[in-house]
């Protein structure tokens, strides 16, 4: 809401500058969003006296004047007819910048027809004070020289406030003035509000059929009004907060709403069928054309102000097209009413119509203000549009809401705020905020909040009032004390952080994607079908309405995007939640880990190593490293039982943790990358995080003594059929249980053209032997080795080399 300093000072003395006022308001919870000085007088315009006037030698309408601002004498060439010696006038000195419709205009030293001029004397229109451009603005004779003109014509300050939803009482000048009065300790005063008495009555002027939605309605009739422009002071007030003046009656209703916070509506009574209003629910099928031209199909839930026949206004929101005041109006029915806030809110939201009135109604207006506002409007309409009150105001009022009574324990207030604010100060603050404080004892008091402060119902609410007025800067910072509440083992965040750290440690960059995705992205992960997806009811756009079931879809987008931008070497991962509707597949929310790598394995290396591309064994290594880091022993990797749509066939392994499927890794199915430009084969791993963390650390680590005696190693090389796997070889070697055998390591595998033709490959292994009690002799190692070689040769169909 916008307020104007000038307008505000009609109700409260402002003994401070704008900056102080704004700081006070912000620090009291009425946040100042913007401050704007509306003065049109540029800085640099000062008061000055004309000392002499001579005719210009080269012109018959210019004069050459000597002017002083009290400290220096300047020569000014002036074209105004009234630049007479002795006059005190505004002087724009060199450097003053005027903002004009054509842009900036800067006063410079200049020569006019050969005579130098050191500034410009100004008319009222040049200063934006009025339209008068007949001559220089003449200031009173006793004006002090050399003062900025803005000291005499300060302009106004427009302040934009953010009013929180709990403070509808601040949606008016008077409401803000009440708080300001408390903040500045200066008195606040409403102008005198009087209206003539009238004893006659108009039967059935107002009928309220739904008192729940309209607990209070005051209608009054003013006849013989003359519609015309409102007086300058009302126009100025309205314009100062950005409202456009319309006519005297409408301007008064707006003025009173802004002054007191009570929305008003003026009906042209002669246009009301039956010359009366009925507050009722709309009938099915009824329609109304609003002031803004919008046609609304009404339903029974909507509250309307109708005449004897049809709806004339959408109650509390907007008047109908033909209900309002126009130039020919002579008799008005002025409405000052209270409507149920939740009803106005839902109507306004449902129909997409929001007005200054609905904004106030939906936040809640002061039940008690309706009467005063009606009186104020009557007073101002009679003063500005003439006419007379035709009848006594007709008021239909239901039960007045109860004022909340709050028990206020001083100690409780202090405990909540954390300051030593005294009982007296608490009482003082509450009273200054117009709360009724009674039964004050050393321990507590009874507080009654007025109806404009319905947000105050509990002690905590009073604590907030005390805190914000006393000043939050008074609250000390007390270092944290108290029990550590939960053991660290409950910390849900630590293991995820550890997992991230390990993957980042392997050179991967972390990604974060949106969790709401398109169905195409969701279904790129072949584990899922449409019925597994959780769909939003109200997505932002129809093709972006699903919770991602896995992290693959969005990551593929990221890989493709990076390729398109020339980023070819990628090591990326994401660890976040995935969502599934099918409990047979996954829980509704689970954490998933997705790792991708593509391009050069070590692009940072300068030798040929830098050119080598990632392959299947790189992603396998990443998975193996993770298993080792998390001390997971109970795992198994096997080729997928049925081809997995995410993977290139024969280039993937399914990961089992503790006997259960927990992920997959390998080369991405090339079908998923057909739309990409550039890039090389992509390898990925997808792992269920819960399974990984559950399996982690099951093995208790305990220190084993280091072997004291040296190991002996022997190499073995052979050619084997293509189909023989490394896994089969080492399984076989281990099964042989050669005496003193410790470990086996593959150190070479190679295929040349000859071998290839024969469907053979060459493999070379290094075996280590060790005894923990003594040094082994060559003889016994050789014997063990010989036996092993012959078993390998005979049982694995290999040819020893």
């Amino acid at each position, binding site marked *: 809401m916008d307020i104007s300093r000038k307008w505000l000072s009609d109700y409260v003395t402002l003994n401070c500058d704008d900056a102080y006022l704004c700081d006070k308001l912000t620090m009291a919870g009425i946040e100042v969003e913007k401050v704007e000085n509306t003065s049109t007088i540029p800085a640099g315009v000062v008061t000055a006296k004309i000392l002499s006037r001579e005719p210009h030698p080269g012109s018959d309408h210019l004069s050459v004047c000597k002017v002083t601002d009290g400290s220096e004498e300047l020569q000014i060439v002036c074209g105004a007819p009234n630049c007479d010696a002795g006059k005190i006038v505004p002087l724009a000195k060199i450097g003053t910048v005027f903002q004009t419709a054509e842009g900036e205009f800067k006063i410079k030293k200049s020569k006019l027809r050969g005579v130098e001029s050191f500034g410009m004397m100004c008319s009222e229109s040049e200063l934006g004070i009025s339209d008068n451009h007949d001559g220089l603005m003449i200031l009173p004779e006793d004006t002090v020289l050399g003062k900025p003109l803005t000291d005499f014509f300060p302009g106004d300050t427009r302040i934009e406030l953010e009013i929180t939803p709990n403070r509808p009482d601040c949606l008016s000048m008077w409401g803000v003035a009440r708080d300001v009065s408390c903040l500045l300790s200066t008195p606040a005063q409403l102008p005198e509000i009087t209206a003539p008495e009238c004893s006659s009555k108009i039967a059935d002027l107002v009928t309220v059929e739904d008192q729940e939605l309209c607990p209070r309605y005051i209608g009054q009739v003013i006849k013989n009004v003359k519609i015309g422009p409102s007086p300058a002071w009302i126009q100025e007030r309205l314009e100062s907060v950005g409202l456009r003046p319309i006519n005297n009656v409408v301007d008064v209703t707006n003025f009173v709403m802004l002054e007191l916070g009570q929305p008003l509506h003026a009906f042209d009574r002669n246009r009301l069928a039956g010359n009366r209003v009925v507050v009722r629910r709309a009938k099915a099928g009824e329609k109304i054309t609003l002031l803004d031209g919008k046609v609304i199909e009404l339903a029974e839930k909507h509250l309307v102000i109708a005449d004897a026949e049809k709806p004339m206004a959408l109650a509390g929101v907007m008047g109908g097209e033909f209900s309002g005041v126009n130039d020919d109006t002579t008799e008005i029915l002025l409405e000052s009413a209270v409507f149920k806030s939740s009803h106005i809110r839902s109507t306004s939201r449902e129909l997409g119509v929001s007005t200054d009135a609905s904004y106030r109604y939906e936040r809640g207006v002061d039940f008690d203000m309706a009467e005063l506002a009606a009186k104020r409007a009557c007073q101002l309409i009679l003063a500005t549009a003439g006419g007379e009150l035709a009848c006594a105001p007709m008021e239909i009022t239901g039960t007045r809401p109860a004022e909340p009574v709050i028990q206020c324990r001083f100690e409780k207030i202090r405990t909540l705020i954390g300051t030593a604010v005294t009982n007296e100060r608490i009482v003082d603050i509450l009273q200054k905020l117009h709360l009724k404080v009674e039964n004050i004892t050393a321990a507590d008091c009874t507080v009654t909040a007025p109806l404009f402060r319905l947000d105050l119902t509990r002690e905590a609410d009073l604590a907030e009032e005390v805190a914000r007025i006393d000043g939050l800067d008074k*609250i000390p*910072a007390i270092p944290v004390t108290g029990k550590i509440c939960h053991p660290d083992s409950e910390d849900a965040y630590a293991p995820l952080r550890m997992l991230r750290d390990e993957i980042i440690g392997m050179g991967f960059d972390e990604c974060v994607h949106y969790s709401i995705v398109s169905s195409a992205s969701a279904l790129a992960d072949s584990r899922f079908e449409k019925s597994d997806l959780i769909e939003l009811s109200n997505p932002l756009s129809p093709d972006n309405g699903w919770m991602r079931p896995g992290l693959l879809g969005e990551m593929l987008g*990221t890989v493709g995007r990076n390729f398109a931008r020339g980023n070819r070497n990628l090591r990326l991962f994401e660890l976040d939640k995935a969502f599934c509707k099918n409990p047979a597949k996954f829980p509704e929310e689970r954490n998933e880990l997705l790792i991708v790598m593509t391009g050069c394995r070590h692009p940072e290396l300068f030798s040929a190593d830098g050119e080598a591309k990632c392959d299947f064994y790189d992603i396998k290594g990443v998975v193996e490293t993770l298993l080792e880091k998390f001390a997971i022993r109970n795992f198994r990797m096997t080729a997928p039982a049925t081809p997995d749509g995410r993977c290139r066939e024969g280039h993937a392994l399914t990961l089992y943790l503790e006997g259960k499927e927990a992920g997959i890794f390998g080369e991405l199915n090339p079908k998923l990358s057909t739309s990409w430009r550039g890039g090389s084969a992509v390898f990925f791993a997808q792992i269920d995080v819960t399974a990984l963390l559950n399996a982690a650390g099951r093995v208790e680590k305990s220190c084993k003594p280091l072997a004291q005696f040296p190991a002996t190693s022997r190499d073995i090389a052979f050619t084997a059929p293509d189909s023989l796997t490394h896994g089969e070889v080492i399984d076989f070697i281990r099964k042989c249980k050669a005496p003193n055998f410790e470990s086996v390591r593959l150190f070479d595998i190679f295929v040349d053209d000859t071998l290839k033709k024969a469907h053979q490959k060459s493999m070379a292994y290094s075996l280590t032997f060790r005894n923990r009690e003594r040094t082994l002799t060559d003889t016994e190692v050789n014997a063990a080795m010989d036996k092993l070689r012959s078993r390998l040769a005979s049982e694995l169909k290999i040819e020893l080399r």
Partner: protein
Amino acid sequence: MNEIIEAVNRAAADAESKAAAAVDTAALEALRIEYLGRNGLFPELSRKMGSVPPEQRKDTGCAFNTGRNRIQQALDAAAARLGTGSKTAENAIDLTLPGRRNKAGHRHPITQLADECVSVFRRMGFVAVDGPEIEDIYHNFDALNTPDDHPSRDPKDTFYFPDGRILRSQTSPVQIRVMETHEPPVRIVAPGRVFRRDTPDATHGMNFHQIEGLSIDKNLSMADLKSVLQTFAWEMFGKDVKIRLRPHFFPFTEPSVEYDFSCVVCGGKGCNVCKNSGYIEIAGAGMVDPNVLKNVGYDPEIWSGYAFGLGLERLAMLRYRIPDLRFLYDNDVRFLEQF
């Protein structure tokens, strides 16, 4: 002392000063040949060792070795000074080639901020907890004292599912879930993803990340809250950062405040980041509303507490001067590798 020792010491001193004065590697090589070369001074002195009386041999040998080491060190130092080590030596390598290393990985800025926040609060005794992102209305709104017709419940602002549940619009429901299952005192932080129905632009996204804090104990006051936020500000942005509490309104806290940091860009002098106010709004906080305590079965006469929440994207954008929120969700490696 004999003449060999004297000759060694003199030669060492000479060589040191010559080496220090050498202007190129050729001069160094000449020095090496003069003193240490096959026909140089030291081999010659070594041949004279036989003439030394036996009782002096140990000392002479010692002096000989020390002298030779001094010269070698002087030559090495001079070589290093001349820049390239011994370029002429057979085993020279190019010291300017890049180191052989593994590519470094990078934490996403949002996670980085979340990690830092969790660490800071953990040091103050807060435990990090998690909650579901698909939430029910009760935990996200009702239990948090949100009025039935509060605008945030509107399907224009919050994502709904056909079964009436929603995507949580804040991390605050985690507060409720923790209090429902734990007896007080509690002291938790909950980092996580939250969802608002905003079209993505430079400052909005369909989802963003928050971190929520909650502490419930006996006699907690706004002074405790202020201290926690002050410590947080110091740990995140340094000891010069001041915080300012401003009264505000949230349904789930009373009194409610917004807290501002003195501008981390201009230090409070005023700049375009803080819109010349000197302060940057970081987030909301307050004393837990008695209605919220009652909703989880805590007696507000016995227990009180504070809660706070802040947006991690905003913090990351401030910390790293990220101009557009969409960068955070675009995942271009050239962006990711900056953090």
